[in-house]
């Protein structure tokens, strides 16, 4: 290092930095201020620190993107032992997790989806949560974690990511081609979401094992313009969510149950 620069330096520049970073108490800061008045090196250091901070001010922070956050939550939920807490407690906890991310510039559509989650009344009916999840997934880049029209690619993708093996069927011949799948988080647990297409519409099929507590739910529902069809098969719960016509969604449900 250049010797002329060395001699120009002051051994208090790290103290100047400590003050800049809020690490000095008032007495120490006062002592330093008295010194700095007569020390060009410390004055230069203070100005340089200010410029360095301006360089890093704003826009460099990298919050977890929505899809990354969702996958982390799913992995964590899968890793935790089955919670004894009732469903509504899990659901409100999940809302808290999601709302923790609000401050970081999520898209407007996502904010709308979160609002749906937050105002959703507690209860065993996941309809509103599913619609919110569906809307969230429709944002660019959020729809599929695995993109494939081949069910032999999609099905193994879930291995190791879920504690169950969701059945995967392609309904191309019935007019509902498979597009891919993703891991999602609904009703307090990680679930499989299969993505199908009908013309320009997307159908999300959510699958998880077991049946909901709280009695029978109507097999079809409508919420905020989205249609929902619900059935059970092979010990698993199925929910299809889409903006296609109710009749078409029923066709989808029947085709799915008929298909091998």
């Amino acid at each position, binding site marked *: *290092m250049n010797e002329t620069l060395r001699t120009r330096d002051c051994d208090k520049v790290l103290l100047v930095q400590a003050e800049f970073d809020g690490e000095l108490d008032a007495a120490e800061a006062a002592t330093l201020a008295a010194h700095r008045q007569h020390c060009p090196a410390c004055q*230069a250091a203070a100005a340089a620190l200010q*410029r*360095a901070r301006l360089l890093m001010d704003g826009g460099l922070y990298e919050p*977890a993107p929505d899809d990354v956050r969702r996958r982390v939550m799913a*992995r964590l939920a899968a890793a935790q032992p089955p919670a004894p807490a009732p469903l509504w407690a899990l659901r409100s906890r999940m809302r808290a997790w999601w709302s923790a991310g609000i401050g970081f510039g999520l898209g407007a559509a996502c904010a709308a989806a979160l609002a749906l989650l937050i105002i959703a009344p507690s209860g065993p009916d996941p309809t509103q949560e599913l619609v919110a999840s569906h809307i969230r997934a429709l944002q660019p880049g959020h729809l599929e974690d695995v993109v494939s029209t081949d069910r032999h690619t999609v099905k193994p993708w879930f291995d190791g990511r879920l504690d169950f093996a969701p059945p995967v069927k392609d309904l191309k011949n019935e007019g509902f081609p498979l597009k891919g799948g993703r891991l999602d988080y609904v009703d307090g647990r990680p679930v499989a979401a299969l993505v199908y297409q009908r013309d320009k519409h997307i159908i999300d099929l959510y699958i998880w094992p077991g049946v909901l507590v709280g009695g029978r739910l109507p097999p079809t529902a409508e919420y905020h313009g989205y249609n929902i069809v619900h059935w059970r098969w092979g010990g698993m719960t199925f929910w299809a969510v889409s903006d296609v016509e109710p009749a078409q969604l029923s066709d989808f449900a029947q085709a799915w149950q008929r298909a091998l």
Partner: protein
Amino acid sequence: MQHRRRAFGLRSEVPASPREPFEAVILPELDAAHNLARWLMRDANAAEDVLQEAMLRALTYFPSFRGGNPRAWLLQIVRNTVYDALKLDRAAQFVPLAGWSEDDDIVGIDLPSGEDDPETTLIKSRDLRRLQELISGLPIELRETLVLRELEELSYKDIAEVTQVPIGTVMSRLWRARRALLQAAATQERSR
């Protein structure tokens, strides 16, 4: 030195009750964890892999969390996971660049003076991509210290714990990181 004493004990820490669950204490720091993973791995997919692994480790280790700053606690796990992924020694004292020893407290000011500070142009331009490149170009021990201080807003004491070095080393690394950033910005501006 007086400031050392100060640096060791300050900043009130939020005591976390051991009864508070993982999701209330640690999950709010998920963005912080991603931020550090992203800056250290420099690649989005690699950062997500590290984040997934680190969050699972955090969940496993959480019963041993004894209060203190949960962000620093989680970031230490993230940092260790990064070093494992990069096959680096977590407590390595890095080979210094020419003329600088790792614990050199006498720090040169080799900076453009206030009158001709070309990096001001970069500050004003708010060119995020170029800034990201400059920061990504810093050696990992300087980059992590800078990110922990300026983006994660940790105290010197917490940074020392996360990076497993004495506070004096944190201070000199931070100074060198800032200096290197300014110099890189100035050099880049001049060459345009």
